[in-house]
C-alpha cells in the first residue's frame, strides 16, 4: 500500500493546495472570519494591493504573496473569510481544505477585536487542527474607539498560542506579527494550544480513535492533529470523511469502523460501514455539543480578558436607524445613487474637456509630424486617425467618469454601506426567489461585471449563484456607464432642452437606468426561478459589519490609480486594435461604400425595428472586446462616412449623433441596449470559468440580448404610437 497510491485519491483536492516551496521558504496561511481585515494584513505584510472592502465576502479566491523577514522567505496565502471549518459554502471549503491538506507551516488567524467572542470560535477550531497557530487580533483601533479593552497577555496564556494586537490598516503591530510568524515557523516558539474538552463519554470515544489512527495521521498528514482527524471521523460529512480516510492506509478503516460501531454514540447502527455508520442525528448531537462547549469556553475567556463599555456600542445602531429604516432606507439609497452620479457627471465633464483638449492637441502635433516625415496617407490614417484617435476617445470620454465614480463607490464600500443596501433590498430578491447576497454581487458588477460574476461565489446555493451570474450583466459596469452618461447628454440635447437643469436631468436619467437595470435583474431572476432554475431561495445569513471611517485620502489615491491603469490597459489591449480595424474597414471601399457602410447597411433594417441603426449595432458587436470602445467605434464609423469634425467636448459628440439622424428614441434605445445587451468578452470568459458550462455561458449572452431586443422593441412601438397620435 504505497503512500502515493493513497494520496492519489484526493489528489484533486491536495494538488491545488500544495504550494511549491524550497527549504528556505515557509508557507503561511491567513484565516479568519469574513471582514476581519485578512486582506489588509496580507497587503501590509506583502506590500501588494489585494482588494479590501468593508463587507463579508470581499475575497473569494486565494491570493498569494511573498515577503522576507530576517533572511527567510515567506509565502503568504490570503484565504476567503470563514465562520467555521465545517464548511458550508464553497469559499469556506477552500479555506478549510487549504489548512487541512495544504502545506502551511503556520496559520495566522485574524480576528476582529470588536467581535472577539464570535471570532474565537474559529480560533479554537484551528487550534484543534494544528499547533502552529498565531492569533492576530486586528482592528484594535476600532476597539479602542468603542472602549473595548483586550488583555492580550491573558488571552495568550489562556489559549496557549502567541497573540499579536494589530491595526493593520495603519501598519500597527505588523512588525511584531512578522517577528512572531518567523519565530513560530522556525520553531523558536512552540505554541501549545489549550483546546476545548468535550463531554467525558465523547472524549473516551475520541481517545480510542486517536490511539488507532494516531501514528498514521502523524506520518501521512503532517499538518493535521490526530485528535482533529478523530473528531471529524465522528461528525464530518461523508465527502470529507472519504477524503480523510483516503489519506489513511486501508487496514485502518476497518479498525475505525469497529470503534465507531462499538461506541455508545452509535449503537443503533452497528452493522453499517463507516461511511453511513454515523446517523445524521448522532452527528448533529455531536456537532451541537462541540459548538456548545466551545462557546462556553469562549464566554469564560471573553469574560476574563475583554472589557466592554456597552454605551459606546450604540453609534452604529443610531446610524442604522436611518440607513436601514423602513421609511428612509430605500429613498436614502436612491438619493445616494443620484448623489454619486451627480458628482460623477459634474466632475467628468470638465475633466473630459481638459483631457480631450490635450489629447487632440497631441493628435494635431502627430499629424504635423507624419506630414513632416512624408509618411504615406494610409499610415497616418491607421496610426493617428484610427488607433490614436480611438484610444484618445476612450481616455477622454470614458476614463473621467470611471476615475470619479470608482473612488466614490470604494468609499461607500469601506464605510460598510453595501451590506445595508443588501439588507434593504432583500425582500425584493426574496420575492424574485433569488439570494439576498445577489445584491452584493451586483454592487461588484458596477466596477466590472467579470468581477461581479466571480463575486457570486459568496452565494452558497448553486441555483441562486447561477441566477446571480446570469443577471449580473444588467448592472452597468464601469465600461458602460460612461456610455450612459455621454448618451444621456445627447438624449437631453435631442429634446432641445438646454440650461442648468440639464445636469440634473442627466443624473435622473442615469439613475433611472440603473434602477431599471435592477428591475430587469429582479424580473429575469424571477423568470429563471420559475423556469430553468426552479426552486425556492436557500438559507440566508448576512452580517452587517460595523461602520468604519474610510481613509479617504488613501482610497482616492489607490482607486484613481487603479481605474486609470485599468482603463489605459484596456485602451491599449482593446481600443487600439479596434481603432485600426475600424479605420481600415472605413477606408476600403467596394463600389462607393466603405466596408463599414456595407456592414451597417446590412444590419440597418433589423436595427431600425428596435429603434437603432446599423452603425450602432455594429459598434456594439465590435465593442464586445471592451464596452469602453463602443462609443469611440460608433464615432469613428459615423465620421468615416461623413465629414471629419473636431471633437472637443461631450457637446460636439452630441452633434455628431444628431447629424446622423438620431432622435430621442435612438438615444434612449442605445442606452437601454448598452444597459441590457450581451456581456463583454472578459465577462463571458469568466462565466465560462465559473460555471464550467458552455450551456450557461451561451445563455448568459442570449438572455440579456433577448431582454435588450424586447425592451427596445417596446419603446420603439410606443414611440411610433406617440408619433401617430400627435
Amino acid at each position, binding site marked *: 500500500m504505497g503512500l502515493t497510491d493513497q494520496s492519489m485519491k484526493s489528489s484533486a483536492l491536495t494538488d491545488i493546495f500544495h504550494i511549491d516551496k524550497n527549504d528556505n521558504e515557509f508557507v503561511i496561511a491567513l484565516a479568519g472570519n469574513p471582514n476581519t481585515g485578512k486582506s489588509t494584513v496580507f497587503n501590509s505584510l506583502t506590500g501588494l494591493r489585494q482588494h479590501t472592502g468593508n463587507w463579508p465576502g470581499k475575497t473569494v479566491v486565494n491570493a498569494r504573496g511573498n515577503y522576507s523577514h530576517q533572511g527567510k522567505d515567506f509565502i503568504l496565502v490570503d484565504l476567503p473569510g470563514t465562520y467555521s471549518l465545517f464548511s458550508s459554502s464553497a469559499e469556506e471549503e477552500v479555506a478549510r481544505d487549504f489548512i487541512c491538506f495544504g502545506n502551511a507551516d503556520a496559520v495566522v488567524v485574524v480576528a476582529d477585536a470588536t467581535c472577539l467572542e464570535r471570532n474565537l470560535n474559529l480560533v479554537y477550531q484551528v487550534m484543534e487542527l494544528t499547533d502552529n497557530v498565531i492569533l492576530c487580533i486586528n482592528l484594535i483601533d476600532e476597539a479602542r474607539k468603542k472602549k473595548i479593552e483586550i488583555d492580550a497577555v491573558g488571552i495568550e496564556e489562556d489559549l496557549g498560542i502567541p497573540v499579536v494586537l494589530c491595526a493593520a490598516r495603519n501598519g500597527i503591530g505588523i512588525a511584531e506579527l512578522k517577528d512572531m510568524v518567523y519565530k513560530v515557523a522556525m520553531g523558536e516558539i512552540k505554541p501549545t494550544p489549550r483546546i476545548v474538552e468535550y463531554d467525558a463519554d465523547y472524549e473516551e470515544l475520541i481517545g480510542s480513535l486517536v490511539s488507532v489512527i494516531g501514528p498514521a495521521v502523524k506520518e501521512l498528514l503532517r499538518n493535521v492533529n490526530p485528535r482533529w482527524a478523530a473528531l471529524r471521523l465522528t461528525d464530518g460529512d461523508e465527502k470529507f470523511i472519504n477524503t480523510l480516510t483516503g489519506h489513511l492506509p486501508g487496514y485502518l478503516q476497518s479498525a475505525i469502523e469497529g470503534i465507531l460501531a462499538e461506541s455508545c454514540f452509535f449503537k443503533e447502527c452497528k452493522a453499517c460501514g463507516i461511511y453511513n455508520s454515523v446517523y445524521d442525528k448522532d452527528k448533529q448531537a455531536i*456537532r451541537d455539543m462541540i459548538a456548545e462547549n466551545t462557546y462556553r469556553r469562549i464566554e469564560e475567556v471573553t469574560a476574563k480578558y475583554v472589557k466592554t463599555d456597552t454605551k459606546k456600542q450604540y453609534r452604529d445602531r443610531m446610524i442604522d436607524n436611518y440607513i436601514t429604516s423602513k421609511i428612509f432606507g430605500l429613498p436614502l439609497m436612491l438619493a445616494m445613487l443620484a448623489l454619486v452620479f451627480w458628482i460623477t457627471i459634474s466632475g467628468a465633464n470638465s475633466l473630459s474637456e481638459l483631457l480631450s483638449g490635450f489629447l487632440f492637441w497631441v493628435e494635431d502635433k502627430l499629424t504635423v509630424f507624419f506630414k513632416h516625415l512624408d509618411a504615406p496617407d494610409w499610415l497616418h490614417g491607421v496610426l493617428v486617425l484610427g488607433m490614436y484617435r480611438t484610444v484618445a476617445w476612450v481616455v477622454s470620454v470614458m476614463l473621467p467618469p470611471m476615475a470619479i465614480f470608482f473612488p466614490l463607490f470604494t468609499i461607500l464600500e469601506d464605510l460598510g454601506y453595501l451590506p445595508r443596501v443588501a439588507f434593504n433590498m432583500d425582500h425584493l430578491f426574496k420575492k424574485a426567489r433569488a439570494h439576498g447576497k445577489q445584491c452584493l454581487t451586483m454592487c461588484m458588477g458596477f466596477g466590472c461585471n467579470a468581477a461581479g460574476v466571480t463575486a457570486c461565489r459568496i452565494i452558497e446555493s448553486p441555483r441562486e449563484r447561477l441566477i446571480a451570474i446570469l443577471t449580473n450583466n444588467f448592472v452597468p459596469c464601469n465600461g458602460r456607464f460612461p456610455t450612459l452618461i455621454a448618451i444621456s447628454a445627447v438624449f437631453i440635447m435631442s429634446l432641445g432642452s438646454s440650461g442648468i437643469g440639464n445636469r440634473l436631468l442627466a443624473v435622473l436619467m442615469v439613475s433611472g437606468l440603473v434602477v431599471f437595470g435592477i428591475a430587469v435583474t429582479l424580473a429575469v431572476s424571477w423568470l429563471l426561478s420559475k423556469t430553468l432554475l426552479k426552486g425556492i431561495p436557500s*438559507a440566508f445569513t448576512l452580517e452587517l459589519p460595523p461602520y468604519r471611517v474610510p481613509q479617504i485620502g488613501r482610497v482616492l489615491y489607490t482607486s484613481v490609480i487603479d481605474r486609470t491603469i485599468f482603463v489605459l490597459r484596456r485602451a491599449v489591449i482593446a481600443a487600439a486594435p479596434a481603432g485600426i480595424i475600424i479605420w481600415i474597414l472605413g477606408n476600403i471601399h467596394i463600389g462607393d461604400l466603405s466596408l463599414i457602410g456595407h456592414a451597417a447597411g446590412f444590419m440597418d433594417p433589423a436595427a431600425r425595428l428596435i429603434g437603432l441603426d446599423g452603425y450602432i449595432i455594429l459598434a456594439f458587436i465590435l465593442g464586445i472586446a471592451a464596452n469602453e470602445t463602443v462609443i469611440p467605434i460608433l464615432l469613428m464609423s459615423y465620421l468615416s462616412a461623413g465629414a471629419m469634425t473636431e471633437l472637443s467636448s461631450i457637446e460636439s459628440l452630441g452633434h455628431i449623433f444628431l447629424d446622423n439622424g438620431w432622435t430621442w428614441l435612438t438615444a434612449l434605445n442605445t442606452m437601454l441596449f448598452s444597459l441590457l445587451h450581451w456581456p463583454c468578452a472578459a465577462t463571458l470568459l469568466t462565466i465560462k470559468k465559473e460555471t464550467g458550462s458552455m450551456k450557461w455561458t451561451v445563455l448568459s449572452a442570449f438572455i440579456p440580448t433577448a431582454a435588450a431586443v424586447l425592451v427596445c422593441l417596446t419603446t420603439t412601438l410606443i414611440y411610433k404610437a406617440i408619433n401617430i397620435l400627435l
Partner: protein
Amino acid sequence: MPKLNDASVGSVVTVQKLESTGILRERMLALGLTKGAKVEVIRKGPSGDPTLFCIRGAMIALRNEESSLIAVQI
C-alpha cells in the same frame, strides 16, 4: 415553543433549540446560536423581513425562513 421570528423588536431572547439541519445548522452554530445564547432583536427590514439580530456582538440579518427554525425563550 416560541420561535426567534416571534420575538419583538428590542427584546432579548435565549436560544433553546435549533430546528434547522445540515449546512444551515452548521452556519447557525458557527455564528454562536448555541443553546443558552442571548439574542437581541434589533430591527426589521423595510417589508418586515429580514430581521436584524445581535448575536454574540455581531449584527446578523436572517430571513423569516431561518429565524423560524430557532426555538427561543422569550
